[in-house]
């Protein structure tokens, strides 16, 4: 049996129903999905408002690194059946889903929640995507703080 792995960088809306269907096999009984959205209002750390985010990506490398994240998930949780990793890019407004990590397995107790969590954490470390935040006081690039090591 081959397990589906989907990764994509897209300017289109993220369709959770369609993605879930693509990673559901006849042996699948559970899915954990993480999505991130643009916050219009942030209260933690540096409270501020956001008009929109502008995402860009180094697409071929981002696709390769998404595949790597999927490979790492499969290595850590052998029970995982399907994996979907999607990043939406372009100009994205508050409440819009920007990223999705979905994983499926036969049962809910063999790592789906942990794998989805791992997937979004790794995406934010190694997948070359950047966002610029445009708010009432101007625009600012958001930079991560992770420096990949050799082989990552």
């Amino acid at each position, binding site marked *: 049996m081959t397990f589906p792995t989907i990764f994509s960088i897209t300017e289109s809306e993220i369709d959770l129903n369609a993605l879930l269907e693509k990673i559901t096999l006849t042996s699948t009984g559970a899915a954990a999905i993480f999505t991130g959205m643009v916050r219009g209002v942030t209260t933690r750390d540096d409270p501020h408002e956001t008009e929109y985010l502008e995402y860009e990506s180094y697409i071929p490398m981002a696709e390769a690194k998404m595949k790597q994240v999927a490979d790492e998930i499969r290595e850590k949780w052998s029970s995982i059946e399907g994996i979907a990793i999607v990043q939406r890019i372009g100009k994205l407004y508050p409440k819009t889903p920007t990223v999705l990590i979905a994983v499926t397995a036969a049962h809910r107790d063999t790592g789906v929640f942990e794998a989805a969590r791992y997937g979004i954490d790794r995406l934010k470390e190694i997948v070359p*995507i950047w966002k610029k935040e445009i708010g009432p006081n101007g625009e600012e690039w958001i930079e991560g703080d992770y420096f990949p090591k*050799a082989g990552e």
Partner: protein
Amino acid sequence: MNKIRILFFATIRDKFGRKTLELDIPNEMTVLQLKQKLANDYPNLKDSLKAVLVSVNQEYSFDDFIIPANAEIALFPPVSGG
């Protein structure tokens, strides 16, 4: 000589004012030497190059790596997707 292509993203692209740069570099040049050359040729990139991530042919690369022929290099800040 080795003809390479450099892609710039996010802050460093804004600083540089261009998305790409084609460059002839000596064979056996390391990533560190390339960064030094760019800092030298484009002084306003100097600060951005201090904490830059470098990929060579779409894999993360590091100071002592030797740049292969016809490499596609990318320079960018730590990623912030999601």
